[in-house]
């Protein structure tokens, strides 16, 4: 075999492409002619093709479905890569912390949190946002525009504020988080455009955190809590002052 192929490495390199129908007619003719004149080599090529197809059959499917952990790891990684791509397109802005609804005690060392690897609740909200973005692109994943607040309270223990006038629900999804499921809601708003509200039940013994708004990985984020629920509002553009206005409106509707 070597004797035959030594001087034909360029043709040999195209033999697989011939089998896969990837060659233009002229090249396909040349390679097929080469094989037609070498029946032993042609038989080897067909034996290789048979073995390849045999292996594809014999190795086709793992005998068991993927474990749930693997599926969830895959989804998380997918969401994070997608998010990273989205965020790379938004110029990072220096982090600025704004406390909204004046009078709140200054607190929350957000910059320290960011240095320590990110704010877990905000990270969860951004993961949820990435998932909703994905759904938005996917034809097979229709958006759900029905916001049934009493069902969400019943199933997830999350209290949702009445939405300010003019805020339109574009998608509602229950999403997973490391601790418990939360709900992510894509909203179109008159002042802020498309924003995301992420809400999740919180431990009763966690203290009340004052509402804050800040830049996070190039986005404006507002965090606030009310009784047994915690909320994250995310705006891909805009600034912390604007998002804090939106958060204040929601807070007013909760109290």
């Amino acid at each position, binding site marked *: 075999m070597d004797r035959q192929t030594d001087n034909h490495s360029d043709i040999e390199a195209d033999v697989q492409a011939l089998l896969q129908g990837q060659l233009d007619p002229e090249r396909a003719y040349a390679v097929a002619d080469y094989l037609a004149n070498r029946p032993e080599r042609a038989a080897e090529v067909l034996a290789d093709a048979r073995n390849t197809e045999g292996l594809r059959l014999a*190795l086709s499917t793992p005998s068991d479905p993927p474990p749930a952990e*693997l*599926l969830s790891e895959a*989804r998380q990684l997918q969401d994070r890569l997608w998010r990273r791509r989205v965020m790379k397109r938004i110029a990072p802005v220096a982090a600025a912390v704004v406390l909204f609804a004046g009078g709140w005690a200054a607190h929350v060392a957000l910059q320290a949190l960011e240095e320590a690897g990110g704010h877990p609740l905000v990270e969860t909200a951004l993961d949820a946002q990435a998932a909703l973005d994905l759904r938005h692109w996917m034809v097979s994943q229709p958006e759900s525009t029905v916001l049934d607040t009493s069902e969400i309270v019943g199933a997830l223990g999350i209290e949702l504020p009445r939405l300010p006038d003019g805020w339109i629900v574009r998608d509602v999804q229950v999403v997973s988080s490391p601790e418990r499921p939360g709900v992510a809601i894509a909203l179109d708003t008159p002042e802020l455009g498309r924003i995301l509200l992420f809400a999740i039940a919180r431990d009763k013994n966690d203290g009340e955190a004052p509402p804050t708004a800040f830049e996070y990985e190039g986005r404006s984020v507002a965090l606030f809590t009310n009784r047994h629920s915690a909320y994250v509002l995310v705006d891909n553009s805009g600034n912390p002052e604007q998002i804090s206005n939106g958060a204040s409106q929601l807070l007013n509707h909760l109290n």
Partner: protein
Amino acid sequence: MGTDDLDIVGQLEPLRRYARVLTRNAEAADDLVQSAFLRAHERRATFRDGADVRVWLMSILHNIFIDERRSGLTTAARERAWTDLQPGFVAPSGEMAVRLSELRNAFLALSQEQREALHLVAVEGLSVAEAAEILRVPAGTVMSRVGRARAALRDFEEKSGADGKVRSFRLVGGRDGQADR
């Protein structure tokens, strides 16, 4: 901008298959995929946007497997005993079932270098350049490993007929294998 190229859930099956070809053990293979996801997560900043996510993940998976082998986590005993373990593939069915099972066993018995080169290029249909990136060897090395793996499987098939029986001994340097055709 589409998201298809970041479809990692869709890569789960090829990744598990590659891990099973490497470890030849279903449980160890899923552990390997899990480790690869964790490392990919830690190193997601190194993923170049626009790069092929399958090649990136398979490369990580390959490296972890090699690291584990070097550190002795994949024991020699397990390597020797792989035929007693469950490689974790569905048993082939139909008329060709016996022959396909034998082919698979012959494939799994190839050296790791030949096995994974053939797997990536032939079974998964990656280009030689992509396989070279995953295996971190020159393209020429990939091609020669694929060539030797193909020759070994041809030899195996030549020696066993469709009925699964050994046809004849093949004389060293002889051409009796050709006479049957």
